[in-house]
């Protein structure tokens, strides 16, 4: 019952986010600030993780292809498929939940604890629109970060393959081009957009409706990370079944 009430409250919050918009002049600067904070601020960790994940996927694929009749180009093919279909959109999103989601929950939660949200409400500002809407818009740019993650992940795979001597560079690139289905990229971006909305709103929910003090802000961040990750994993399954099944 508690969970159903929470889900209902979440959707009411989403409705409230889009009501009574903040002045565009102010909203514009808030959106730009959030893009800087949430997207550009995350590029470093996204690039770092994607590069090494791409490398690891390549090494593991190569080590499992011991049959000499299997062409080495398959390593590039496997790396591409793994990175584009799963690692770039889903793995990066889980990382983003940890980084961006915790930031969103703790910043909104701290504003709740220190009565800054009450201050906005007293002034007649729609605090949900003011705080959450810019994050939703900023995270619409998240697919660009995932596109970078795809590129860097594959690059990491190429570096691992070539410098680890698992496959020649030409073979790896040939594998990247085998049976390429453009819809897979579209599928990855659709998933990413859905995840972006979840990453923007669920941690906001946990921060906005938290009660208590500094300790509870920490607890809310942890709860937000757990539940947002769970929802992303479930949505990943549903979307994959719907679009590729």
């Amino acid at each position: 019952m508690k969970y159903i009430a929470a889900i209902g409250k979440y959707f009411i919050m989403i409705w409230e986010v889009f009501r009574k918009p903040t002045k565009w002049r102010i909203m514009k600067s808030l959106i730009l600030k959030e893009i800087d904070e949430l997207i550009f601020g995350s590029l470093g960790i996204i690039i770092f993780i994607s590069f090494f994940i791409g490398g690891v996927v390549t090494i593991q694929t190569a080590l499992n292809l011991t049959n000499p009749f299997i062409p080495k180009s398959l390593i590039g093919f496997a790396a591409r498929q793994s990175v584009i279909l799963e690692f770039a959109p889903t793995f990066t999103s889980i990382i983003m939940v940890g980084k961006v989601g915790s930031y969103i929950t703790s910043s909104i939660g701290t504003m709740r604890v220190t009565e800054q949200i009450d201050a906005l409400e007293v002034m007649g500002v729609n605090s949900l629109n003011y705080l959450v809407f810019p994050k939703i818009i900023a995270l619409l740019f998240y697919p660009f970060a995932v596109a970078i993650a795809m590129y860097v992940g594959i690059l990491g795979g190429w570096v691992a393959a070539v410098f680890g001597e698992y496959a020649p560079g030409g073979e790896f690139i040939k594998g990247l081009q085998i049976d390429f289905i453009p819809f897979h990229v579209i599928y990855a971006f659709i998933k990413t957009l859905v995840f972006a909305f979840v990453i923007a709103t669920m941690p906001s929910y946990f921060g906005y409706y938290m009660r208590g003090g500094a300790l509870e802000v920490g607890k809310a961040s942890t709860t937000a990370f757990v539940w947002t990750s769970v929802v992303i994993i479930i949505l990943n399954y549903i979307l994959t079944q719907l679009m590729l099944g």
Partner: protein
Amino acid sequence: MIEVDNIHKSFGDNHVLKGISALFEQGKTNLIIGQSGSGKTVFLKCLLGLFVPEEGSICYSGTRYSELSTREKSDLRQEMGMVFQGSALFDSMTVEENVRFPLDMFTKQTTVEMKERVDFVLERVNLIDAHHKYPAEISGGMQKRVAIARAIVMKPKYLFCDEPNSGLDPKTAILIDNLIQEITQEYNITTVINTHDMNSVMEIGEKIIFLKNGLKEWEGTNKEIFKTDNQAVTDFVYSSELFKKVRQMYIEERN
């Protein structure tokens, strides 16, 4: 003027406000006092429209809040200023940006006009060199003054203060109390202050409402509170040794 008629507010089984009626007069500092848990904060949040009472009505200059449309409620809120207990300044903004925030949000003033207004109110609260500092870089007393400046920047009709001098040293607390009273009289606004600080009661208690267990137990002025025979009020007022001595001196003087 704010008229409150028989308001009730509950949270689950906890009946916090049990039918409070009160009149908060314009141009006066109206104080709500009472022990922790007496319902002061809930009452103030009802006045601010942050909580909706289950019963009763609140009228602002004759306009009943519950009968207003969402748009009208929003407009009314722009006529309210609030000083929160912890100041509630926006951490990511400088002092100047904090004070300018309501102007940015709700007016069509030019940057120059806003700057003039912000400078004026900051000067009014005796803060001249703090424009570009962040809340974390200024003292608690200065934060309170910024909060007051932000509350009055829109020329409100109603000013609400929740424990405005909590956490401040006695000297700064008196300065803040006096500043609020001066502003109230200067701009002829209706000020409601939530406090349990007896120094504030003595200094600026032009009208005092004493709450106990969600009910209005007593009403009067700062002069009357020291003479009342109401047991609950005297227990509250004379709970400190200092005020016990003050009362003793008063009785000796009277005799």
